[in-house]
């Protein structure tokens, strides 16, 4: 029996905040971007949820995986490099909340 993928909630250019969740399980969202604001840089496609498939589930429904782009200076308070250096992480839809461009501009370190 097939299950439709969850609707795609974000588009390229959308500001997003990674959920600041810290819970046990097979989580593929690196800790260092949780709670951080970035911008959707691309979409990869609909994939199963590894958090449930890793525990014997079927990983359904599939959901979008996004390339999310972060400014390095937003991630690390003493970053040694250019303000325009960036970091890209692939993140599943259910780890993201909508954010505003104001939040992106303000950065994460205020």
């Amino acid at each position: 029996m097939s299950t439709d993928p969850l609707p795609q909630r974000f588009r390229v250019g959308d500001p997003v905040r990674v959920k600041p969740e810290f819970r046990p399980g097979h989580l593929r969202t690196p800790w260092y971007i949780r709670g951080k604001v970035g911008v959707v840089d691309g979409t990869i496609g609909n994939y199963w949820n590894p958090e449930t498939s890793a525990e014997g589930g079927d990983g359904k429904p599939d959901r979008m995986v996004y390339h999310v782009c972060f400014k390095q200076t937003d991630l690390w308070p003493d970053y040694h490099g250019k303000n325009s250096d960036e970091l890209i992480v692939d993140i599943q839809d259910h780890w993201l909340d909508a954010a505003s461009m104001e939040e992106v501009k303000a950065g994460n370190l205020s």
Partner: protein
Amino acid sequence: MSSHEHGSEHSHDHDHDHAHGDDDLLAEVFEGGPPDDYEVLEIALRELLFDKGVITPAELKAKITEWDGKSPENGARLVARAWVDPDFKQRLKDDFYSAATELDIDTAGPKLVALESDDDVHHVFVCTLCSCYPRAVLGIPPEWYKSKEYRSRVVVDPRGVLEEFGTTLPDSVDVRVTDNTAENRYFIIPKRPEGTDGMSEEELAKLVTRDSIIGVTEALKPG
């Protein structure tokens, strides 16, 4: 077809690196000292799979040989073709799997995505969660790629890590780190070095190293 077509020297040691018996496989595991828990687990699982007839030692050896055949040379050929053929480069970016088949390189498995470094952006990839790696085109990852040091430091201080690899980037270049966390595996097309205009694809491929495809170095300079 015999694999001994390279004259009369019968150089067994490079043709048969992994065509040894079970005892050798165990010896390989114990080489670096007493086995750790995961090595013991691997041996136990392997022996159970053999005993129950799920796989045979010959099949395991064939798989090891297959993986040893996936070397960074495949990645280098793709980069060299991308450098000389802009249309191919675009196809590699659009659909890596299909483009690679043009060079008879099979990239079945996780989806590969090519990122191109140029005068403005230098790409480097890492897997901070484990050791995801574009194995289909680079083979087995180097130890340092799997180390906690590389995985933690390259996201925090990529320019510092690149310096340790001998890579100094001009201030005009942005660094973009990509963390392989989900379904894609990344592949960097390094910037084509200066002074390579007249070079053939084969010569160019020799300038493309494994490390330059990971992005911790640039491609070699000619000469």
